[in-house]
């Protein structure tokens, strides 16, 4: 079977081709320009970050062999040949892991509570006064932008070494992050129930309690669980600055070159993070249906 393909007259085709060429040429030029600017920025950054490809080349072997070393026991065997020897400190590590989980749990709970108290002031539709909204928003922004570990560094000096500093650092950072997310949920809430309750002469507090809170609790819980997941990771490094948790053990093992310990602790951290991820994912699915999981 033959198909009839209609071909445009020469003149018309040439005009169309020329227009297409021009359009493509402009796009290509813009792309090229963007690529050039990006390349220049990269080059500048490479100089700024003292990138030395020769160092990388000479030492890349070290990176690979580092993993070889951390998977080797002191007696030269592979770690999995003698699991008892590899995980010799499992009691201590499990205890530290438990502490890490507690730090993130308590930190998340305190942070979520503070965020819950503050978010109604930060949301566009429920804030009682514009100046209050401005102040609360800037406060949350500050708590969110300063990294948790910087708070931990300062808190370790104020509250002393130990998990308390870690908990407070995580709590403040979570307040900032959750406060923003919570207030976004409130901004998306339906305002009709609020009008209904206000028309009965209720106070602002009653409006929030009976009109907004029932609409938003599911979203809040979902975000708080997500934050808990993130905080477990964060709590695992709080020990680097002396703020409690498994990070303390890890940093000692890395700095003192206790190779097989490094891999053992990393393994326990990764497994814990996996379990928490899967667990909270399952819980969110259970509580709020499939769409809340994304």
């Amino acid at each position, binding site marked *: 079977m033959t198909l009839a393909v209609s071909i445009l007259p020469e003149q018309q085709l040439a005009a169309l081709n020329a227009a297409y060429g021009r359009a493509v040429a402009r796009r290509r030029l813009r792309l090229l320009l963007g690529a050039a600017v990006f390349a220049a920025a990269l080059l500048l950054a*490479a100089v700024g*970050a003292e990138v030395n490809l020769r160092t990388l080349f000479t030492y890349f072997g070290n990176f690979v062999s580092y993993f070889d070393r951390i998977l080797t026991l002191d007696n030269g065997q592979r770690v999995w040949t003698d699991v008892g020897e590899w995980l010799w400190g499992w009691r201590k590590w499990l205890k530290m892991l438990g502490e890490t989980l507690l730090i993130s749990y*308590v930190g998340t709970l305190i942070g979520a509570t503070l965020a819950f108290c503050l978010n109604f002031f930060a949301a566009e539709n429920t804030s009682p006064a514009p100046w209050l909204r401005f102040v609360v928003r800037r406060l949350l922004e500050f708590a969110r*932008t300063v990294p948790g570990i910087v708070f931990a560094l300062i808190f370790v000096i*104020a509250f002393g070494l130990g998990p308390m500093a870690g908990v407070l650092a995580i709590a403040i950072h979570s307040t900032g992050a959750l406060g923003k997310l919570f207030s976004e949920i409130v901004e998306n809430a339906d305002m009709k129930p609020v009008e209904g309750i206000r028309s009965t002469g209720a106070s602002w507090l009653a409006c929030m309690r009976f009109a907004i809170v029932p609409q938003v609790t599911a979203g809040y819980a979902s975000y708080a669980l997500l934050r808990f997941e993130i905080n477990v990771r964060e709590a695992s490094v709080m020990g680097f600055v002396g703020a409690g948790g498994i990070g303390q053990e890890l*940093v000692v093992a890395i*700095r003192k070159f206790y190779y097989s310990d490094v891999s053992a602790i990393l393994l326990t951290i990764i497994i814990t993070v996996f379990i928490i991820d899967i667990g909270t994912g399952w819980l969110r699915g259970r509580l709020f249906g499939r769409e809340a999981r994304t």
Partner: protein
Amino acid sequence: MTRPQEVDTAQIRARYPEMFDRPASARLAMPATIVAALAILVYGLVDLDFSPSRFFAGLSQLGWISLMMIPPDPGSSLPVYLKALGETLSIALLGTTLAAVFALPVSLLAARNVIPSQILRFPIRRFLDSIRGVDTLIWALVWINVVGLGPFAGVLAIAVSDFGAFGKLFSEAIEGADQKQVEGIRASGGSPLHEIRFGLLPQVLPVIAGQVLYFIESNTRSATIIGIVGAGGIGLQLAEQIRVLEWQRVSFLILMILVAVAAIDFVSSKLRFAIIGRRAVA
């Protein structure tokens, strides 16, 4: 006005039993959860050595520290700090770019519509998951052992940990792409490589570009902290000044970080809008 009718409670009860007699398990679930959550909280507070006296002593210390932070003052080391800030931005940019370059081919291997075989995809996905399970700071410590102290270790740390994140995000973007265009290429006789180049990449590149920009933004934050373990950038200066209790310099450095992050946020959101359009971002 009509008087409201007498309410026949019994009849309503009979009609809507589930409204009046919820099973005990449903009624008790919420209070039980709250009690359990509070119990864990109390146990945690005790186990983690919280005490009111310690808390308030620390709080007053913190108050003193905040007072000593005012006014922010760089002393004579402003040029050093500016250089450190530049270093931080460089670390973020280079680390993210490196990660994206290496993650793109791997993410193709992890996408369901490119590699249909579950056996092949599974190990790659788990591999990416494990990389993401390890925090950037830990990678920084490892790289410091390998290439020595300095910003280069920071670049590599960010590159490795983002590699895991990008691998997952990119493969999700690829799986979300429209399969019709790929089929069209295949129908006209294209090879598998052609399918990826002309069928998939044009669809996913804008999404990927948006994600990379977003990560450059968030990595500016990560790059400020990896200095704390010695991997260069402004975090190094910050940790040093905190350790020697130079609070005015500390507050100046924190302000510098806030301003830099805000500036990067602004530029990159403008760029993201330009690349993928306002609608796609919101």
